């Protein structure tokens, strides 16, 4: 698939912008702080309904404007769709597909699929476990949009359950039968949605592992082998060959683990079992990447994760749109070239760079300059 047209209104630094795009490589060049990342961030937002840079939507709306509107014309197997998102701070977004309102924006997730590489990706390796969980869940959603709903349900159950545990922990006497019976109900709901998320993540990690190893060795041939593991809060309870376990197999195991943790949970007032406590483990050779890998190795690992995501989405069907935000500046020439070779076959590659020399010659194509909020076509 590719984006044929992008139109912005009050998004970040842009009052308005209209950009026609084509398949192949497109490079956005311009000095720092001119709005290159803002453009590709908008495209990423249409795909994921979230920014790769900020957790909340408020910074996406142009200073002083009430809302932002992003429109993307997406071409997929020769069919064109117009996706429109109205970003309202503090309220839910409004979405339109081919000019008709969509009751819930979530329903159009998956219309555009992107894989976005950015300097922030270093946090995938060096950051908290939450960063890696988000990577997995976003990829799950890109592959099967219904996981956005599963994830939202899980977060809601967790919030309710934590509220109950917290209020129980605040009372010093032992919780009454009504509280315990209510907790039982939340346990079964948490286990059901949690097991669904866990089963999907385990399957995803199994699919992703070999692709990450391959991408890493292509990027950094002289370094050790990269591999993935998944540490679940179910611990020893996880069955052998966990990637083949389904929701119905995992849910009772999770309920069991919840029962065992209950006393501790009631004391501490938080949920201690479930996929929100799990960890995607990145290994380099025999060592965990986090805390051990060098800066360059960490970068290669982060890139390998994104490349693997790209391969996986690609194998599911249509090529996702590849976005490379400012990544070449961080790499030495060898890795620049190897990354360029790996991404060149994609249907559409969008690149931002402060100086054109950063972009390897393998990736030549259309180019725009971005300066003073103006996006101008060069060639």
């Amino acid at each position, binding site marked *: 698939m590719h984006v044929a047209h992008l139109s912005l209104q009050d998004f970040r630094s842009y009052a308005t912008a209209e950009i026609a795009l084509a398949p192949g490589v497109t490079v956005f060049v311009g000095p720092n702080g001119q709005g290159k990342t803002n453009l590709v961030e908008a495209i990423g937002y249409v795909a994921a309904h979230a920014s790769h840079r900020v957790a909340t939507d408020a910074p996406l709306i142009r200073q002083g404007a009430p809302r932002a509107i992003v429109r993307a014309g997406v071409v997929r197997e020769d069919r064109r769709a117009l996706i429109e998102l109205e970003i309202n701070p503090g309220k839910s977004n409004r979405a339109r597909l081919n000019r008709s309102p969509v009751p819930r924006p979530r329903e159009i997730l998956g219309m555009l699929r992107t894989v976005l590489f950015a300097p922030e990706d270093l946090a995938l390796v060096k950051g908290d476990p939450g960063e890696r969980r988000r990577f997995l869940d976003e990829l799950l959603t890109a592959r099967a949009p219904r996981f956005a709903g599963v994830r939202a349900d899980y977060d809601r159950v967790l919030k309710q359950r934590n509220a109950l545990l917290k209020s129980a922990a605040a009372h010093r006497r032992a919780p009454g039968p009504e509280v315990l019976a209510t907790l*039982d109900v939340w346990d079964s709901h948490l286990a059901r949605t949690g097991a669904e998320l866990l089963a999907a993540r385990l399957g995803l990690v199994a699919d992703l592992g070999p692709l990450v190893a391959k991408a890493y060795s292509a990027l950094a041939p002289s370094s050790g082998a990269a591999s993935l593991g998944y540490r679940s809060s179910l611990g020893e309870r996880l069955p052998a060959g966990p990637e083949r376990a389904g929701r119905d197999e995992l849910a009772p195991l999770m309920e069991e683990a919840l029962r065992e943790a209950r006393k501790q949970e009631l004391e501490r007032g938080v949920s201690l079992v479930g996929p929100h406590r799990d960890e995607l483990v990145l290994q380099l050779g025999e060592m965990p990447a986090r805390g051990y890998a060098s800066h360059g190795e960490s970068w290669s690992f982060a890139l390998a994760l994104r490349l693997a995501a790209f391969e996986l989405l690609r194998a599911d069907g249509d090529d996702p749109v590849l976005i490379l935000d400012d990544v070449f500046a961080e790499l030495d020439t060898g890795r620049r070239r190897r990354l360029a070779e790996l991404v060149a076959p994609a249907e559409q590659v969008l690149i931002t760079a402060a100086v054109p020399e950063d972009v390897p010659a393998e990736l030549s194509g259309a180019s725009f300059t971005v300066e003073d909020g103006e996006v101008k076509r060069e060639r």
Partner: protein
Amino acid sequence: MYEGVVQNLIDELGRLPGVGPKSAQRIAFHLLAADPADVERLTKALREVKDKVRFCRTCGNVAEEDECRICRDPRRDPAVICVVEESKDVVAIEKTREFRGRYHVLGGAISPIEGVGPEDLRIRELMQRLADGTVTELILATDPNLEGEATATYLARLVKPMHLKVTRLASGLPVGGDLEYADEVTLGRAFEGRRLLDV
């Protein structure tokens, strides 16, 4: 800020559900400009609703007497009770004309975030109604969202020892939604396709 009485009105209107400060202001100025007779009718309606309307002592639905119209109607099947969150859900279900039993209005759903536990809902009253064995079927028609599901599960487990037929409104209802917003056809179909709740 406006002068005393006007601002008072805006503040009071702003306390209503779904009315933000801007709408409150708009309504207030609409009322200021309106025909005195119209405002009088509104005032009367408000006063009457507080004077005359009570909650049915049996089912918790809004009623003009001690018991609501449905509880007093001898043609309604006393063996089947449909449990809903709010009175407005009774209205929505009545419109479908699918249901000939009686209701029980809980007054909300279990939601620890909002500090609502089972003891804050009319669950004890429900258990009293079930005690004499007249009721043989319980339909759990709480909202098709997480809190509604949790409340249904809680109730189903609570009444399990009584060996009633317990069903839950089935598919067709938009998940994450409010019962009152479901259209009549969908809601009617959901009643026909209700499923046994296995807990």
